[in-house]
């Protein structure tokens, strides 16, 4: 036992050190995700169920839209749903980290807290986007063409939405101290967010109270651009499109795609900021 253990000199607190922390936290999310095969499968089962069971059932209720598959309408919504649940689950896993101690390992490291949170947000967003891509692969089944432009557009939009949702989850998680509270989060935030986003029904012609709620749902600003991208690539009678693709409006004005995406980005950054501040507090 006369091995010489070489002492090492560690980080001096430069940006490069924090960047390494961002990358390793990101990488951990990917490793954990890839090790959890049941999670991948179950989080895909739900969107598939929505798209093919609920979607097929609902399409019989839509009168007049002959030659149009209602599931095509639902497709961007179901992608958003996949991203929503995966992103929130990833972010809220930080509560598990708190419960099982690993959060401490991260919080006592010399790296700055923003680096941990940015890594976590990037990791959750990557994982959620990857899940979204799997659903995206089903596009052909619901008559959405595999156009490279469309796929690329959706990919970018998915990544942005995934980032915003992970940041939302982290901001929530900063307030949750116990794993048991996760159910509350799902019921109180995640499901309303999903229903109000225009993912499974159009936002056009809603009663005022409901329309108001949809406007404060950040996910609605992500679903709209995705649906517009899909609708731009399929043949659809204008009168049918008008009813289904109303999107988010402010005082009757339809938000352009760029502005809707900007809302998603800004909300994401603000929520990430909140998460960083909350996790940086020392008692």
């Amino acid at each position, binding site marked *: *036992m006369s*091995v010489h*253990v*070489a*002492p*090492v*000199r*560690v*980080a*001096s*607190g430069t940006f490069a*050190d924090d960047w*390494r*922390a961002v*990358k*390793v*936290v990101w990488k*951990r999310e990917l*490793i*954990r995700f890839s*090790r*959890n095969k049941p999670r991948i499968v179950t989080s895909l089962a739900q969107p598939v169920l929505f798209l093919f069971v609920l979607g097929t059932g609902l399409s019989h209720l839509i009168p007049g839209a002959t030659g149009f598959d209602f599931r095509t309408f639902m497709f961007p919504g179901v992608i958003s749903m996949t991203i929503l649940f995966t992103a929130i689950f990833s972010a809220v896993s930080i509560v598990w980290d708190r*419960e*099982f*101690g*690993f959060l*401490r*390992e*991260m*919080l*006592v*490291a*010399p*790296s*700055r807290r923003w680096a941990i949170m940015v890594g976590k947000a990037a990791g959750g967003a990557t994982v959620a986007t990857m899940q979204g891509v799997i659903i995206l692969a089903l596009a052909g089944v619901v008559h959405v063409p595999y156009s490279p432009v469309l796929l690329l557009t959706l990919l970018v939009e998915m990544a942005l939405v995934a980032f915003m949702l992970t940041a939302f989850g982290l901001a929530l998680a900063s307030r949750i*101290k116990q794993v048991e509270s996760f159910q509350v989060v799902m019921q109180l935030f995640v499901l309303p967010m999903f229903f109000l986003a225009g993912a499974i029904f159009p936002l056009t012609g809603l009663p005022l109270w409901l329309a108001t709620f949809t406007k404060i749902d950040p996910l609605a600003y992500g679903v709209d651009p995705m649906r517009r991208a899909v609708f731009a690539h399929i043949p659809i009678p204008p009168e049918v499109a008008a009813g289904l693709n109303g999107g988010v409006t402010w005082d009757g004005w339809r938000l352009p795609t760029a502005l809707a995406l900007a809302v998603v980005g800004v909300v994401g950054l603000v929520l990430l900021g909140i998460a960083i501040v909350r996790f940086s507090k*020392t*008692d």
Partner: protein
Amino acid sequence: MNDEPAVLVERLGKVFDDITAVDDVSFDVPVGESFGFLGPNGAGKSTTINILCTLLRPTTGAARVAAFDVASHPADVRRHIGLVFQDSTLDEYLTAEENLRFHAELYGVPRDLAEDRLRDVLEMVELWERRRSVVSTYSGGMKRRLEIARGLLHSPRVLFLDEPTVGLDPQTRAHIWNYIEELRRRESITIFLTTHYMDEPEHCDRIAIIDHGRIVAIDTPEVLKSSVGRDRIELRTEDDTAAMAELRDRLGLEPTMAEGAVRIYVPNGDRFIPTLFADLSVPILSVSLAQPTLDDVFMSYTGRTIRDSEASNAERLASNPFIRRRMGARR
């Protein structure tokens, strides 16, 4: 490095809501020493260690670790300390190797050195062969060894061990102590540990006994034990109740029942035993004479045993939500 102590604590205090967890504590730990914080659960050991690790802010007073102030330079402190908490902080989904790599990246260990260092620390705790196993397959003792290895990965100047052996079987505990000894020999590191196992801090150069947030005694284990000035005699008799009554009435002692035997404290125990046989009418089955232990030291300073203190502390702290959660998580 300069001559400043590895740990310097000046009039440190920490108050949670209305509970004073640490009360005006001062001490220092010279570089290279192994220093033990001994006391019942809830006495303020973990709070103190959390302040020194920059996880909690002191309410009053100041502390410096590796020559950096814990309140104003937390990142510098963190860079120079290693931590092993009483609750595991490993990622059980990752392998041992991945846990250590994660740590190396987080602490900015240079990449060209990280792999060698990783091998060194894993070999030291005899986990190199198991490095590719996912941590959830490890036993409690292996996890603790891995955490010690991880705490050393970035060559800290001070290694904090908060109850490093809690929840482990005696054999594994002994092993862990061997590693810690080995470590001191090889890394010339300062070790700061807490424990509520009375036999453990014998390994330390110096011990502070803490009770109700205050340091009641601080010295080497030898000096502390000799300061008790009394030996412990334990006797088993045919009728313990009668024996206790006689010891009390005839000899003016204060016998207690502990671990199935009658326990008394007397100066010069070896000379007292003949008196015992002469004066006691109850037949004696066995007598044992023991030098004072740290438990006796604790008793002589606080008037209570560690175990009694833990019972009352648990009650006292049950009203504090912060600590209650921590205790709940410890199960």
